[in-house]
Structure formats: structure tokens, C-alpha cells
């Protein structure tokens, strides 16, 4: 078990990064902080002994973030990049709602009694994951694959230049 200190540090960094993502007005900086948040989440997975997921988190989100930045650059070159990520009129309402939501979830979480299982994580967790994915969960797996394919095709069709 990893020291609790690591968790506190990682959790703190992740939350700060997430706040920065939302509050900064430069889209690129937001995207860069988003990477920090994602890496924080990946380390959280590591603490939870989910190495495979941690690696997936990094590989999927790091690539996606780069693309996000590119989009940010492409789509905001027209104006001032420092003002590219402003708030809309729902800032106050959104803030209040999310605070309320958080309060609700936290109270719910604290009040619930969980049936904690103290067993250790199996050594060959990756192998187990693979067997599960291609055994018991093969249909969701295939559907996910199909979904990705459809999303790929759909994205290409939508983003394709419209010529008349």
C-alpha cells in the first residue's frame, strides 16, 4: 500500500489542475492544465493498483489533449488567445449548482456504509482483465470497438470539407 501522503499530494494537484482548467481564460493553458489533471488521475489509478488503466489513461488522454490544443489554436487564432476561454452568463448559476451537487454527493458518500473487501489485488491483473474483456464482457468489448469505428467514420464525415 502506498503512503497516504502520496494520495493527498496527487489529489491536491489534480484538484488544483482541474480548477485551473476551468478558471483560466487562455484556452491553451486550460488544455495544458487538463494534462496535469489527467496525469493526476492516472497516478490515482496507480495508487489504486490499476496500472493498465493508468497507462490507458495517459495514452488516450495525452494524445487527445494534443489534438485539443491544436483545435484550440486553430479555432481561436482570430481573436486574442488570452481571452479565448471566457465564462458565459451561467457562471454564477453553474457555480452554485455544482457546489450544491458537491455538497449532496459528499453527504451521501459519508453517510453510506460500504461493504469493504480487504482482499489483495490479484498479481496478474492485466491477464485477468484481458480474460474478462474477451470472455465474459466480449459483447460490450465488440460494441465499444464498433462504437469507435462509427465515431471515426462519423467524425471524418462531419469534419470533411463541405463542397457544393
Amino acid at each position, binding site marked *: 500500500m502506498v*503512503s497516504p501522503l502520496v494520495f493527498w499530494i496527487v489529489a491536491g494537484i489534480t484538484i488544483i489542475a482541474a480548477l485551473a482548467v476551468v478558471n483560466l481564460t*487562455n484556452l*491553451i*493553458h486550460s488544455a*495544458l492544465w487538463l*494534462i496535469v489533471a489527467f496525469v493526476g488521475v492516472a497516478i490515482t489509478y496507480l495508487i489504486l493498483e490499476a*496500472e*493498465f488503466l*493508468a*497507462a*490507458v489513461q*495517459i*495514452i488516450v488522454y*495525452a*494524445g487527445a*489533449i*494534443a*489534438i485539443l*490544443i*491544436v483545435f484550440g*489554436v486553430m479555432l481561436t487564432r482570430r481573436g486574442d488567445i488570452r481571452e479565448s476561454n471566457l465564462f458565459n452568463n451561467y457562471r454564477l448559476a453553474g457555480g452554485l449548482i455544482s457546489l450544491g451537487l458537491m455538497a449532496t454527493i459528499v453527504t451521501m458518500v459519508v453517510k453510506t456504509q460500504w461493504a469493504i473487501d480487504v482482499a489483495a489485488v490479484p*498479481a*496478474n*491483473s*492485466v*491477464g485477468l482483465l484481458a480474460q474478462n474483456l474477451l470472455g465474459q464482457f466480449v459483447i460490450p468489448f465488440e460494441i465499444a470497438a464498433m462504437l469507435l469505428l462509427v465515431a471515426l467514420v462519423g467524425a471524418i464525415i462531419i469534419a470533411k470539407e463541405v463542397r457544393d
Partner: protein
Amino acid sequence: MENLFVNISGALRGWFTGMGLPPMAVEAIMALVFLVAILAFVLLNVVYLVYLERKLSAYMQQRLGPNRVGPRGLFQTLLDVLKLFGKEDIIPNAADRWVFRLAAILVMVPAIMAFAVVPFGQGMIAVDLNIGIFYFVAVSSTATIAFLMAGWGSNNKWALLGGMRTVAQMVSYELPMVLSLLGVVMLAGSLRISDIMAAQKTVWFVVLQPVAFLIYLVASTAELNRQPFDLPEGEQELTAGPFTEYSGMRYALFFLAEYTNMIAVSAIAATLFLGGPQGPWLPSWLWFVIKVYVMIGIYMWFRWTFPRIRMDHLLAFNWKFLVPLSLANVLVTGIGLEIYKWFQTIRW
């Protein structure tokens, strides 16, 4: 000789434990020791890789190469590094300062991190993760961001174009690279580096997976941004791509990262396809270094032979050729594995 470094590390560990430190502290110190050892190995190699690159290119181009500083120019790179230290560190006024500064440092992080799973010899892996090779893939995929940060942070159109190209190139070549590694993983039946090494006791995977090896070679050249895939940098087109505005040590860091990445990628190739640190007569770590240098030699040979490919050709080559080929390779490997299993059942 064989266990030289393993013994050193064992002795260190014993020494630290003997000092009465708690096990966790010993682990932390040992991790630090490994890190320092890897850094030392990498930096030393990079300095002489630059020298090797220059000498090799000189021989290919019928020149002499560096031959003034020290015997046969051996100290040329050291002096170059010193010179870069002495240079003014220029940050453009309009640059995004923190992004600009951080990019030069961040570019080194994935390069160094990848070495955590590199087996420098028998029993010489810093961390033998059970997702070993996947860890390498994940870490190296983050390198894109540093390039993009450099390109964007410089506030320079050439740099931005270079950064955009980097994203397009590295994200798309990631795919065939991972898929080519998949063939090896299927044969070994594990992501763990030591398992993959053990699976190559008799036959190297380059024999069983020649197509995967070639795909890996091409895709990793693209990942390294080296000729013929050095479009992000493309001196003749984008002056220096994302590095256009960098100077002094920050520029040197990008260079350092490029060569560090080259060692890492070569090390992974040597591990996955060339049997890793295994071979007769010589100590395992020496074998490993030899194999890594063979791979590095190939990359350098590429660089000094090919002209630069064009952006649209680059992407078309990836999506229309490499990716389908690597998918087919995975398929063929799977079928081959099944046939092999079936043969084994009927033999018994």
C-alpha cells in the same frame, strides 16, 4: 563480469539496509540510485552519439568530420555543450513564457521515463512492471505535448506549423508502432519485459515477426522525428520547427531529448526483437549495448541517406499502408499462433 552491475546494486542495497533504514526508505534511495545510473548512462551515450552521428555522416559524405578538439575530435561534443551553456538564453517577448520554458524541460521527461522498463542486462531492469511494454508506449505518447508546447509557446508561425505537424505525425505513427509491438506481445503472451526476454531464449522475435520489426523501424523513425520523417523540424522548410526560437541550453535540451529518445527506442527494439541482453560469450549488458548501437546505426544510416518525405505522403503512407499492414500482421500472428497450438496438440 556478467553480474557486475547487479552485484553493485545488491551491495548498495545491503549497505543501506545495514544502516538501519526502513525498507521504504531503502526502496526510495535505490530508485534514486537507478535514476542516477540511467541518467549517467544516457548522458554519456548522448554525448558520444552526437559525435558518432557526425563521424558517421562524415564517412558517408566523404568528409573527415570533427577532428580538431582532442584526439580524432573526441571532445568536440563536450566543447559544443560547453558553448551552449555559455550562450544567452533568449525568450521572445511575445512568447508564452511559462509554456516556452516548460516545454524544453518537459521534452526530457518522457524520454528519461521510458528507461524505467529498459533491461540493460540480465536482471538489470529498474522496474519490471507487469504492463512493461505498455508503459513504454504510454510514456512515449506524451512526448507530443512538449513539442506542441514549444511550437505554440514560441509565438512564431514557423514554430506553430512545426508543432502542428508534430501532432499529426506523432499521433498517427503511434498507431502502427503499438500494433507492431502487439505481434511480439501475442507471441510472448505477456506485457512484462522480462517475460518477453525469456520468450526469446531460442529464437529472436525479429525472425518470427519480421514484418512487425520493419513496421516498428519505420514508425519509430517517425516517432523520433528523424529523417526521412523529420518534418516537424524540417530545417529547409520550417527553419527549425518548434525549436526555432530556442537558444543555448534550452535548445540543447531538445537535442538531448532527441538522442535520448533514440536510445530508448533502440533499446526497446533490441529488447523486443533482438533478444534483449542475451547472447553468448560476452556479458549480457555488453550484448545489450551492442544491439542498441546496431539499431542506432540503422537510424543514422536512414538519416544520412533519405531526403525528407512530404506531409501528405507521410500521412497517406501511415494510414493507407502501415496501419493496414500492421493490422494484417496482428491477424496473421493470431492465426499462426492457433496453428502452432494445434500442431502441438496433435504431436502429443
